[in-house]
């Protein structure tokens, strides 16, 4: 009698265990482990950084020499998997020609060289930390490079009244995903160091969703009918900085490029 009770109990326990396994979400990460704000929204606050080579080139690329001989291996470009879904950016033929021209003249033309504002989405995958400051309403994103920053308006959306480098950002929540609609670009920023670009008809929609407490999934849909044949998407994770006391520092790079930018204007040293 005891033996069959034992088997019964074991069977019931086994069945409960199976049920518990079935109920655990099978997707990557555990949503119940995501930190949440009071009110229930995912808490995106923190210091984050991408670990891709997208800042060099959004598309798949081999290792190659850099553009400045004297930098040697320090300026060399490492190989990397592209972050573009589908592989290639869908350029219109004339726009692709312009991209190649950009690349050929990148030292002169890349706004990053001159410490100009990076634009969106480029700011997200630059090789430096970014900080998300999420209140109960608006979300401010501050970037290391050039002290770039933008406020994503949540409570009260606003249309772009001025064409800018970083665009005008309006955000909303779709379930656990923070969706940011960015318009009003001045068309002067590049998308990476490979000459990929867009114009002032650029429209970017970003999606931020936490995979787990320390990983933020970033997606951006990029649309510009003047340049691309269709909208296209990039995606990659952002990883949380967990060093003790990790914080965003300044990279006020204007000062570091003045000798370059004012080379033709500054007084030459006298002989």
């Amino acid at each position: 009698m005891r033996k069959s009770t034992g088997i019964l109990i074991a069977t019931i326990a086994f069945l409960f265990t199976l049920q518990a396994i079935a109920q655990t979400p099978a997707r990557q990460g555990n949503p119940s482990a995501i930190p949440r704000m009071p009110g229930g929204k995912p808490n995106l606050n923190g210091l984050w950084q991408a670990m891709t080579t997208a800042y060099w080139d959004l598309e798949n690329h081999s290792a190659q020499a850099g553009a400045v001989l004297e930098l040697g291996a320090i300026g060399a470009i490492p190989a990397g998997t592209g972050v573009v879904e589908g592989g290639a950016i869908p350029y219109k033929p004339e726009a692709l020609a312009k991209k190649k021209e950009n690349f050929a003249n990148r030292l002169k033309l890349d706004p990053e060289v001159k410490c100009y504002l990076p634009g969106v989405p480029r700011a997200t995958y630059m090789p430096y930390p970014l900080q998300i400051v999420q209140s109960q309403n608006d979300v401010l994103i501050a970037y290391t490079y050039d002290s770039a920053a933008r406020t994503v308006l949540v409570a009260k959306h606003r249309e772009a009244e001025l064409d800018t480098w970083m665009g005008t950002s309006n955000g909303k929540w779709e379930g656990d995903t923070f969706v940011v609609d960015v318009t009003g670009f001045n068309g002067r920023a590049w998308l990476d160091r490979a000459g990929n670009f867009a114009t002032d008809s650029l429209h970017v929609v970003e999606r931020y969703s936490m995979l787990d407490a320390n990983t933020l999934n970033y997606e951006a849909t990029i649309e510009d009918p003047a340049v691309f044949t269709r909208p296209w998407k990039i995606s990659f994770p952002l990883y949380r900085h967990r060093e003790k006391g990790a914080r965003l520092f300044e990279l006020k790079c204007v000062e570091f490029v003045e000798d370059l930018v004012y080379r033709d204007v500054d007084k030459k040293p006298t002989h």
Partner: protein
Amino acid sequence: MQATYCTAICVISLAALASPVKGQSRQAIPPSESNFFIGTPAGWLTPKTPWGDPDLQGIWPLNNVGITPLQRCFSRQRYPGAAPDKIAACDPHREFMSEEEFKTIKENASKMPDRFADAAREGEAGRAFVTGIVDAMTPQRQTSLIFDPPDGKLPDMTPEGKRLAAEMKSTWPLPGENLIFDSHHDFDLWDRCITRGMPVSMFPFRYNNGIQIVQSPGQVVIFLEMIHDARIVPLNDNTPISPEIKQYMGISRGHWEGNTLVVETTNFKPGASETNTAVIASPAGNRFPTSDQMKITEKFTRINDQFLIYEIKTEDLVVLTHSWTARFPLKLEPDYKLLEYSCQEDNRVVPDWISVSRAERSGKTGAGSVAPRR
């Protein structure tokens, strides 16, 4: 020895607002010098964020005090044509105007022709564009932004401060100075679109005075419109940071003292001027140095739905013989549109001014064609 710049009433009033009230209704705090004549209604409690911190969020543009002089009884004797009788009449220890005087100031200000406001109101684009527009400014009853030293004046510089000042450059001349521009080093950090630095970024300018405070659990950000600076203030984070790491906006840490946000900033990279002539009654020339020993302590206390009292104390043993502290009210402007202020991207000051300076010195002017961009 602490310089007392607060009357006893001031201490009591702000302390009353600074401490959290536990469940009892609060009496109204009437307008007085201690709260810059901005009262707190009966029963008003500091709003809180959902995570329980006092809520200071919103846009508090600095032009609320845009026509209040930095220094009290600012001497015009440095400049030719100063009228001595007008200076002698000013009492350096009087922190606030009388009600009558303030009424006169407000009336005069409202009668002052504001070409820019008129142009804006009438939609007159031509004049608005070329003459430029400045932010609206509100007369305040305080006689200066500085309350300490008690005479409302900036403290003297140390000999080292004076030595550093003499090495500084700016497009703003000292009286009688004839400036020459030959390289980007002949300009100040603001002309060069690098930074306005501290403490001056927290003082009014002629335009783009927008400041937005955004809070999250454990952080406060003070975002400055010009030149797009997010001052990040982690709360209760005492992780030591090496003095080897220096930044123009320093490194800030914050904590709450009751309902007052206290922000302490150190680790400054010297180079910016501590004062700017855009703030009325500032020293000429933008040659007030800062050192890496500068320490700035700020306090933000909300006193009703619309106003907060802001205090900023600057200490620098290398440059200053004494600390100086400014206090003033800021007003919430929810409809103020904070817009991107890119600067370096289209800054012509350096090449244009060098071009003008060289033309003046050589007597040779350009061929007449538009100067090449960037």
